[in-house]
């Protein structure tokens, strides 16, 4: 049965973990943003075999469960010959989630770059810009801003995957809620608190992203000649 006393008792205990939960979200997101670029490079080398190889590696990471990847890095990585080492739970979860989400982020980057008009490349060539200038001054400044809402969406999705780290002992809010539950045999209230905290953090962010999406759509909409038909 629901008890407000337990709720009030559990709340300060569970909220202790919010720093870890948010910290893991931010660090793995930064990793995903950086690694997303690496995939892009690995998949557009001059060699088609290498591109094909990394495309399927990325597809592999993308379509297998992040939970297994977390277990792999935490439990099995130390046993890998030559490169194996022991990670703390936090680092293992950060690497696993960061790499898992980088496979999505790289897709977002790609869609942004592909949406840049072909004429921009041709004009850069005609102006004799170097490859670096073409990318840094012409293509990326146009490609990246429209992807911001999508990148924001992935931040929210990543945030919701972070409690998976509780399974290897990262002491975030979910982990603390389960500890509280196993100590007192009251699971209902602490887990409800976790759900409420997630909702409180992710729902306003989702609304913000939707608003941003609308603004971006208005701003970056391909200017079409709109014919107004008078009614």
């Amino acid at each position: 049965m629901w008890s407000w006393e337990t709720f009030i008792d559990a709340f300060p205990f569970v909220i202790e973990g919010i720093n870890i939960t948010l910290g893991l979200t931010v660090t793995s997101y930064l990793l995903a943003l950086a690694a997303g670029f690496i995939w892009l490079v690995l998949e557009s080398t001059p060699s088609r075999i290498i591109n094909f190889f990394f495309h399927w590696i990325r597809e592999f990471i993308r379509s297998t469960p992040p939970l297994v990847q977390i277990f792999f890095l935490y439990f099995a990585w130390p046993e890998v010959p030559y490169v194996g080492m022991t990670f703390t739970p936090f680092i293992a979860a950060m690497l696993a989630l960061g790499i898992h989400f980088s496979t999505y982020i790289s897709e977002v980057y790609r869609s942004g770059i592909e949406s840049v008009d072909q004429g921009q490349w041709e004009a850069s060539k005609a102006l004799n810009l170097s490859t670096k200038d073409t990318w840094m001054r012409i293509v990326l400044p146009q490609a990246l801003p429209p992807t911001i809402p999508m990148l924001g969406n992935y931040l929210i999705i990543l945030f919701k995957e972070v409690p998976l780290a509780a399974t290897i002992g990262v002491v975030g809010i979910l982990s603390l809620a389960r500890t509280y539950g196993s100590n007192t045999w009251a699971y209902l209230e602490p887990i409800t608190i976790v759900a409420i905290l997630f909702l409180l953090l992710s729902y306003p962010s989702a609304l913000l992203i939707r608003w941003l999406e609308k603004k971006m759509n208005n701003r970056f909409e391909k200017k079409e000649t709109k014919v107004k038909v008078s009614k």
Partner: protein
Amino acid sequence: MDSALNILSYLSQGLWTTVSIFLAATFFSFVMAFFAGLCRVVKNPLVRGVTTAYVEIFRGTSLIVQLFWLYYAVPMLFGINLGSNWWVGVIAIALNYGAYMSEVVRSSVLSVDEGQTEAAIALNLSRVQRMRHVILPQALRLMLPEFGNYMIQILKGTALVSLIGLTDILYYGDIYRSTNLDEGPLAYLMVLIMYFIIALPLIWLSKKGEKISKKGVAG
């Protein structure tokens, strides 16, 4: 190589649990998606409000939290037993991804051109007929690629059921690793490969769906 095959045959004990949960959860996700998606485009504000709350709550919290909530909290709160852990897993995944996929249904239905509705009204079709014979057939093809993607997500989600004590592929992978510590990397690699093999047809499906949704149709 030998031990890889060994591990594969050991893991395959959990294959049916993973596949059966995946199939059942996919089925119920689709049911929830169409039900909730269509409820959100009806006129009645109460129906719309309730389904919007469902969708936002389940999209706003994570699958693992919902799974634990159903597993630990629901029996305490309502004194009901959801049957078995198998059902807890299926219901949690179906409610979660049903909420996500209902957004796909809703946005696809809304993106069918206004003129189609107007033409259907002009032809004197009822609301239900309009939806069934005019709007939905056109909206369905728009949903295909997203549905393919979400089916991969559902498959990945099924790995969580090992946390509530179901004996799926990951469960057997864990057992194998804990008894053969030095073969841990190979054990988890095989687990990942098994999931990937199940995912391959889904990847193909979502790529195919993308082609179908882009083909033809003016506008």
